[in-house]
């Protein structure tokens, strides 16, 4: 830890422009991904998020092929894919996985083609690595305003629709009975999700983008029982993971294997998100152990009465 502090204070961590841009982009994306991700987890749309990220690879690699910034490719493909998913019925839980899977399969074939051409035409696998696994250090400072605008737009959608979105997430029927246009709200959310995934893709890569979306949100759900607070906690967890990840990647320049230019930042970010998820389970475990003696058995009876079958995980863990 003292080594890390030394890295920050002595080697000009903040003086490096690539680092400053990476931290700024990472912060914006972590905040947006936290807020949007909480709803992704609550709505059970993690697979849709994953698919949007994978399909972003198709857009990103296509953009690279024609010489446009990958963010535009991620964005265009993500929004198009979200539109197709919406049209073929992602809102219905049963049709959701099927629709997503079908769109995903078709898109990834194109990604394979584009990445193959990228590698052959430019005689390097740099594009493949950048598109799929990202490099937040490679983002130019001129991209930051666009990232901010997109982030504010996605966050704006989720904050503006907060109550109707929450109500339709809990029960589409209850929301419809209250006069919420459930389908419209769901489509708007999917748009915000597509934009968020594109932002996450440009930060840690298309393939890894869901980690930033789902991981901090899933951790936050374990730490708080209030939906609004979960969005804040998820954003904070994302920021910690991104900042520490950037710091470790910066420091890893001196790590073995020597002369290889250090370890990729996406590896650190995703690993940290995973570790933070594991840690976030500890408070509940401690609480369960404390209450287990007098409350555990009662809750087991309640739960089994509701579902008709015992649910061991809620009583045991």
């Amino acid at each position, binding site marked *: 830890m003292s080594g890390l502090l030394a890295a920050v204070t002595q080697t000009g961590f903040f003086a490096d422009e690539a680092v400053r841009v990476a931290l700024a982009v990472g912060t914006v994306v972590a905040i947006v991904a936290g807020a949007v991700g*909480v709803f992704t987890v*609550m709505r059970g749309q993690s697979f849709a998020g994953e698919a949007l990220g994978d399909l972003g690879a198709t857009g990103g690699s296509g953009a690279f092929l024609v010489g446009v910034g990958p963010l535009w490719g991620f964005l265009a493909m993500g929004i198009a894919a979200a539109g197709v998913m919406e049209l073929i019925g992602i809102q219905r839980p049963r049709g959701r996985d099927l629709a997503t899977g079908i769109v995903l399969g078709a898109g990834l074939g194109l990604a394979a083609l584009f990445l193959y051409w990228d590698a052959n035409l430019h005689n390097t696998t740099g594009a493949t690595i950048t598109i799929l696994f990202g490099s937040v250090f490679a983002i130019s400072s001129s991209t930051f305003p666009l990232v901010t605008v997109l982030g504010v737009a996605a966050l704006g959608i989720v*904050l*503006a*629709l*907060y*109550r*109707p979105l*929450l*109500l339709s997430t*809990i*029960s589409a*029927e*209850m*929301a*419809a*009975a*209250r*006069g*919420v246009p459930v389908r419209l709200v769901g489509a708007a959310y999917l748009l915000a999700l597509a934009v968020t995934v594109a932002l996450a893709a440009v930060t840690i890569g298309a393939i890894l983008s869901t980690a930033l979306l789902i991981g901090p949100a899933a951790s*936050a*759900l*374990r730490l*708080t*029982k*209030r*939906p*609004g*607070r*979960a969005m804040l906690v998820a954003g904070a967890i994302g920021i910690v993971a991104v900042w520490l990840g950037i710091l470790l990647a910066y420091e890893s320049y001196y790590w073995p294997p020597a002369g290889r230019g250090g370890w990729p930042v996406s590896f650190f970010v995703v690993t940290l998100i995973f570790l933070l998820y594991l840690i976030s389970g500890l408070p509940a475990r401690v609480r369960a152990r404390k209450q287990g003696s007098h409350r555990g058995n009662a*809750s087991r009876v*309640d*739960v089994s*009465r*509701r*579902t*008709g079958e015992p649910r061991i995980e*809620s009583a045991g863990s």
Partner: protein
Amino acid sequence: MAEARTGMVSAGDPSVGLEALAGDGAESSQLAGSEPILSVRDVGVRLSGRQILDDVSFAIAPGEFTGLIGSNGAGKTTLLRVILGLQAPSAGSVLVAGRPRSQRESTIGYVPQKFLLDPDMPMRARDLVALGLDGNRLGFALPSRARRELVERALESVGAGGYADARVGTLSGGEQQRVLIAHALIGKPRLLLLDEPLANLDLGGADEVVALLSGIAQRERIAVLISAHEMNPLVSAMDRIVYLAGGRAASGTTEEVVRADVLSALYGHHVDVLRVHGRLLVVAGAGEPSDLDGHEVAFPAAGEVVS
């Protein structure tokens, strides 16, 4: 008297509506003097070529506790969706507080069927109840003392004050049911619709929820319409029963509707009504189960209990 009614029923008016029974005076629950909060008139619903509801008519007065009884597939959920304005009827009309389908959200509170939240959903009971206040509005709700007190009062009124801060998903079926009722009540509805609220409860839990709803109907003058496939938990509390079979309805007091002649006319073949230890049982009599208007009627084998 019974024969006269049977004659009336089979003479082309299979849905024993309010009109058919209005002459019965003493034992008929009276709507006279108060305008009905809900009136369903000749409602028919046809979905992809199948007649789900056919010529359904009944009315409910403020403060009345009504059971909507029918087996699975009888059209209970469809009828509730029509009343909510989520499903347009292909025939007939529905008036809520004298008004047609518009701005209905504020007058109707709704508790859907099969509500089960994941235990890890970050949603406290009080958050869910607060969404009943203004869940359809944009943005966040600003926290205020008045708001907190409204939520608190709604939770207390259903006896859910003790678990206001618990995650909804970790509550038992009966507890979740109470929270949902508080969610529906906080918007000050005049009509409360509940779709199979007793389905996941044991007998004791079902009795508690029925007592709670019946109390709310009497105290707050809120009309309660509750759908169920099993009528017995409701019999003691019901002011009115709407019995659905094969998409058609008979409505009146339990004594008026749950009778061999009325239900036989509704089912389109003979059924018997038995009383066993105070429980009402509808059983198939002699004769073959028949089709009504070409569609399948859920009908049990002889001796099997329908309700």
